[in-house]
């Protein structure tokens, strides 16, 4: 229990989720918006592929030679790969110093962008209007998110190299 001011300061230093420093909490929430968008962009195709039987996306992704189970497994893996970073941002900010959630989310975002590009290539010759353009826009957005996450990992590398004891 916290009884003294010194205990409170020590607790506040180890628990950055307390909105003492409003800037840091706000920045974390803005980063969480990006992570939520990343998860949403991968959950939506999974739902449409697995549970909406005659959707445009399901029909686009099932006309190739690759087996349906492989495609569904790739979708689920991409969703799961983006979750550790989101949970760290929302509920466990003291673990944000780790690099692997961001690196895994970056790689997953890049592969998801390639997957949306594949969907755009497959959807263009079919008669679905501008669906290929919608898929292409999602691929570009995911490419931007992957770049943001990789840039954050590189920034931490730079900080660690700068602060390393000589």
């Amino acid at each position, binding site marked *: 229990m916290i009884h003294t001011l010194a205990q409170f300061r020590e607790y506040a230093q180890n628990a950055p989720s307390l909105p003492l420093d409003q800037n840091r909490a706000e920045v974390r929430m803005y980063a969480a918006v990006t992570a939520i968008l990343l998860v949403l962009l991968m959950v939506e195709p999974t739902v449409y592929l697995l549970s909406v039987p005659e959707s445009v996306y399901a029909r686009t992704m099932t006309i190739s030679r690759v087996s349906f189970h492989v495609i569904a497994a790739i979708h689920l893996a991409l969703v799961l790969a983006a979750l550790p970073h989101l949970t760290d941002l929302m509920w466990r900010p003291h673990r944000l110093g780790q690099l692997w959630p961001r690196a895994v989310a970056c790689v997953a975002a890049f592969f998801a962008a390639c997957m949306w590009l594949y969907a755009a*290539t497959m959807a263009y010759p079919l008669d679905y209007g501008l669906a290929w353009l919608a898929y*292409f826009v999602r691929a570009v957005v995911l490419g931007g998110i992957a*770049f943001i996450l*990789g*840039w954050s990992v*590189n920034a931490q*590398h730079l900080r660690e*190299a700068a602060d390393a004891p000589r």
Partner: protein
Amino acid sequence: MRRAEVLVFLWLACWTALAHANTTLVDDLVAYDFASLAVSLGAGLFGGLGRTLIALLRRATLVGDTKFLLLRDLGVSAVCGAIVYVVIQGYNETASTWWDFPRIGKDTRLLLLLAAGYAPNWAFAAIRRGADGVVQRAHKAIRGTDAPISEVAPLGEK
């Protein structure tokens, strides 16, 4: 003198054969598959983005100026993707007539363009050297110093 040249140019421009050739060229261009070309260009650029991401994620390579690295990789991948796209389209046009080779489908073409956009060091080395020179000169002109893009991290004693 200039008036005579302008008049000759105007007379040539109104020559019906030239006008007919220009309009039919526009018709042929409009009928081209530009959406497929745009998606293929995007695939090449995504290969370059993958190369930038790998450089950002590896602990051994520290990137100083990410904007210039990204632009360099996107520029190289655009050129390499265009080269590979033209090669694939040429192969598709001639594969059925010269030999009995199969056509390259859209998904295989996407994978090839991603790989070409990634453009490993041993391939397209001349294009990468040219792009590096362009980036260095641009950085010198804008900032006045050399671009701090490092390929190997100066790891000290850790």
